[in-house]
């Protein structure tokens, strides 16, 4: 029983981080219709920005987070303006491939700037494990999880309560009408990339604290696809639920299926099996919009 509880709790922790990554992805998809395969690499860049600020410039952690966010925002704005905007309205294959191309460029640049080896963040949080009743969490999972939750709450508040957030929601809802109401659509597109990059950077820092950073960190980015498909590509609430569910599923698969297939990494593949099943049954996910085609 305690074992199950332990799996569930670590699943929720992993899931919270997945949810944060997925939200960045959904923000871009919702407002610009772009499937962002470079999410993982944006995370990696953000993690490296924060690491540089802490390990090289010896800034405190909070300042490093700001540096990472600012750096990521600049990258996001640049990418949107230079690469994605000329691609507006192109076929899905082109848009997918352009983000894949970007991810390759980012990976290469990171290798040039920071080298290929693993690095870890300086110790930031108290080392004492956090105990929740019978469940014990290592501190380097518990604290990053709290950062992820805080970031999600902040984002939700931004969308709900600010003028800009309202403009972004309006654009996602109906582009033409929003444009007619005087909302600057181009600014919204730009902003959604900035927001997505900042979110990805925070997620990158979180993942980096848990597992160390290297140019290969971006590979985590692939794990969000089961999450966003479950929740619905265009639903932020869905990203939250999807993240938690997939995190739990992954940990349960790791706990209970691994003994059946020892040493095979069944944990990594289980979410993708779930993804296929979801696509068969309900391709638009739990909370996504069902697309209706007309001629």
């Amino acid at each position: 029983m305690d074992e199950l509880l332990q799996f569930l709790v670590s699943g929720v922790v992993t899931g919270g981080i997945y949810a944060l990554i997925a939200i960045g992805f959904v923000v871009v998809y919702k407002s610009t219709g772009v499937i962002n395969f470079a999410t993982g690499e944006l995370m990696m860049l953000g993690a490296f920005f924060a690491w540089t600020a802490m390990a090289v410039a010896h800034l405190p952690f909070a300042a490093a987070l700001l540096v990472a966010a600012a750096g990521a925002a600049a990258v996001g704005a640049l990418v949107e303006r230079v690469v994605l905007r000329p691609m507006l309205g192109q076929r899905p294959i082109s848009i997918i491939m352009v983000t894949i191309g970007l991810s390759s460029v980012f990976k290469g640049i990171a290798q040039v700037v920071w080298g290929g080896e693993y690095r870890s963040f300086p110790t930031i949080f108290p080392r004492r494990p956090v105990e929740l009743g019978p469940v014990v969490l290592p501190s380097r999972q518990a604290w990053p999880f709290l950062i992820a939750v805080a970031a999600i709450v902040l984002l939700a508040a931004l969308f709900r309560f600010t003028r800009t957030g309202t403009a972004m929601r309006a654009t996602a809802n109906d582009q033409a009408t929003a444009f007619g109401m005087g909302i600057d659509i181009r600014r919204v597109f730009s902003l959604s990339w900035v927001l997505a990059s900042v979110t990805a950077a925070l997620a990158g820092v979180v993942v980096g604290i848990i597992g160390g950073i290297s140019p290969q960190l971006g590979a985590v980015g692939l794990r969000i696809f089961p999450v966003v498909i479950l929740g619905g590509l265009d639903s932020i609430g869905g990203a939250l639920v999807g993240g938690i569910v997939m995190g739990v599923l992954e940990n349960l698969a790791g706990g209970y299926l691994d003994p059946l297939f020892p040493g095979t990494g069944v944990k990594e593949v289980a979410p993708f099996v779930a993804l296929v099943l979801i696509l068969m049954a309900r391709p638009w996910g739990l909370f996504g919009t069902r697309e209706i085609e007309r001629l």
Partner: protein
Amino acid sequence: MLIGNYKVSYAADQAIFRTPASRAWLWVLLGVAVAFPFVAGDYFLYLANLVGIFTIAALGLNILTGFTGQISLGHAAFVGVGAYATAIAATRLGLPFWLAVPAGGLAACLAGALVGTPSLRIKGLYLAIATLAAQVILEWVFTNWTGMTGGIRGINVAPAGLWGFEFDTDRRVYFLVAGLAAFHTWAAANLFRTRVGRAFIAVRDRDISAELMGIDLFRTKISAFMISSYYAGIAGGLWVYFAKVVTPESFPLSLSIQFLAMIIVGGLGSIKGTLFGAVFVTLVPEGLRAVVQGATAYSPDAMSWLAPMKDIVFGAMIVGFLVFEPHGLAEIWNRIRRFFWLWPFPK
């Protein structure tokens, strides 16, 4: 507009060679391909084999993605299915290569049909994600179905042999690869002159309209997946006799992406473009290697820059083509040709 190219029958309009000159060019190209192994060095033959195998795989992907509009991020996994099926047929069943390679094609074809089944319900971006899942799951199967695939150690395969002739060097494998690549290019070019091939294009352009015109969507999409994966399987089978070993890490997601890069750089929905793309995407990293090796004369640790430079150039190439030349090298080629058609008259 080509001057003096006046057609009076449908047959002439559908002809695969629009002008006598293009027929002549093909003979020149075939002549070069036949003469190549007698003059080229080992390294270039190795590259030529790689290009040939990738051409077949990329043709398959272009049939699916470029001509039928179904995005696949799992093409490398189908190449892997073909490779494993060929290797298993050759080692366990003891089949000769001329049966083992088609067996690989057939196995990949069946896997393609299975993965393609949801394509009626899901399309566009969702289908891309479904094929991504297929890639991840198949890679996992390659690594972990140890009883069948030999796990990470893979399967060693003896060279292909025919009537006592062994295809054991790259020079000899070249004839196998070049022959099959030529045959499959010819088949693909002709596919789009048949009803099935025209239906693929109609589905790409607007699937609902195609359905209204009496095209069975499900059958068409499944056929596209099957033909495409069959091509991938044949490429996989050739890979087995080229590398003499099959291991799971030969078919990663990055290879799928490389195939997509080939058809984008070459030209989506263009047979000629696929050839250009396969050559270009395979040779650019090799050219880069040569440049970096040259640079070691000035800076001894230049080789450590090779891997990141490859990533950057590869990504920039995809982004650059998509932004500036979305129809790929095939379009550049056509522009040059149009210029000479009209020459010396101005545009």
